[in-house]
């Protein structure tokens, strides 16, 4: 009887021991988000060089695999491109004439805004790692607070808005992409000036939600229309290209319209990004980005 009791005591003690890791894991969940973000970035810092090396090595191997089929396809492509170059050369002449006129206009506008200009130094950073979860769309960049990155900084790739900085460490930062389900970007359709919110879907596309249900495009299909950022809320500058409308589907029974968007840049192929620090609150109205009225359409008026 005694031996049975001591046995059961021992096994229950062992079971409690097993639960300790689970209790630690659950306790970690109660950490404040800002603190846990800091821990994550601090702990990830030593792996940065290794992550960079892995990423580079992977890219090299991929390049080697793709080289053969690519060179075969390239010879056919060269012929097509030769014809295209000819067409483009003719177009260039027309564009040069337009450009001359625009340059004169730009010079006068630049002179006008010189006084109000705020120094905004964009920062260049490289992607060093991606999210471990399939459901999240974030990446790590090799620039942190030591380089001047601040939380909520805007992140651009090839002049397209790709996301914002969600957490900053000393030498690295996490960028939440526009396709992440937690991302919300105020935006408008360039051609119609309808305001909405770009939300991530956790897939390759985003959604432009909360558009008016009544048609403002004169019955035209919105597919192919450009979506740019809107300065609502002061976090994002005006008129940064975000995405193109991929699908314009009629949905009945909803108080607002939703469009499917294809990001302006292939987020899987982004390796270098530009970071613009967020406008400081008192200067929101004075920021050069906010002043830019080009293409702001009806919403800007």
């Amino acid at each position: 009887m005694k031996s049975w009791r001591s046995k059961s005591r021992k096994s229950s003690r062992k079971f409690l021991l097993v639960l300790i890791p689970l209790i630690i894991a659950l306790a970690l969940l109660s950490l404040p988000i800002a603190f846990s973000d800091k821990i994550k970035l601090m702990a990830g810092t030593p792996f940065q060089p290794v992550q960079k090396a892995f990423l580079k090595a992977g890219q090299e191997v991929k390049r080697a695999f793709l080289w053969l089929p690519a060179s075969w396809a390239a010879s056919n492509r060269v012929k097509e491109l030769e014809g295209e170059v000819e067409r483009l050369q003719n177009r260039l002449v027309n564009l040069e004439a337009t450009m001359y006129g625009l340059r004169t206009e730009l010079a006068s506008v630049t002179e006008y805004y010189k006084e109000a200009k705020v120094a905004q130094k964009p920062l260049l950073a490289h992607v060093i790692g991606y999210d471990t979860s399939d459901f999240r769309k974030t990446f790590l960049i090799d620039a942190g607070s030591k380089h001047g990155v601040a939380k909520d900084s805007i992140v651009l790739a090839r002049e397209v808005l790709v996301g914002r900085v969600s957490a900053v460490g000393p030498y690295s930062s996490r960028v939440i992409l526009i396709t992440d389900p937690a991302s919300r970007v105020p935006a408008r359709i360039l051609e119609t000036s309808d305001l909405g919110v770009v939300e991530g879907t956790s897939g390759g596309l985003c959604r432009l939600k909360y558009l008016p249900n009544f048609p403002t495009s004169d019955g035209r299909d919105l597919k192919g229309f450009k979506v740019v950022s809107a300065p609502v809320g002061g976090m994002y500058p005006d008129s940064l290209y975000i995405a193109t409308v991929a699908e314009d589907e009629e949905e009945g029974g909803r108080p607002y319209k939703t469009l499917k968007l294809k990001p302006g840049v292939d987020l899987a192929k982004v390796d270098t990004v530009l970071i613009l620090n967020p406008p400081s609150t008192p200067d929101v109205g004075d920021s050069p980005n906010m002043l830019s009225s080009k293409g702001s359409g009806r919403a800007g008026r």
Partner: protein
Amino acid sequence: MLEILQTCSAAKGVGGQAGEAVLWVILVVTALFIALLETTTFPYNLGGNLLGIRPDLFLLSTVFCALRMELLQASLVGLVMGLLKDLFSQDRIGLQTSFLTGIAIILGLLKNKLYKDHILDQLLIVFITSMLHRGICAIIIVITYQSASTASILWKVFMGSLLTLAVAPGPYLLLNKFLPPVRWKDVS
């Protein structure tokens, strides 16, 4: 590395503590290696970008270790794997740690009923666990951020689990050779 694993498992058989320490070092190094693969090579290189899905090597390692190790060791493996997954993710720290530790404990407790040493049994366990894990993650994502697309989430749950299942035989054969299963002797 295989030689070290072999030496270590032999040492463990004798009851050597040094062997167990080496085993833990190998597990932590493997977890770090998986973290690097999952954050750099798998997502967008080497053809790993299969419409946004990738095999969950963290879960795979946790499941196989839970089926082969003692209960306490299995829960510690879950803790280490989950912590590393959390460190490189936007999710809250502790979320994946809790999931993987929980999975390790549940599998550790049920393994005598589930585990039949056969590869198909283990692959089935991997698939079911992966579906459950991804399903719960998906539900959390959908509830937290209502913007997540249901089609994309369902695709990731099902196809991600299938992809995890597809890569599972590799680690299974490796572990079967170098880390033989330990029967349930902690809690009875």
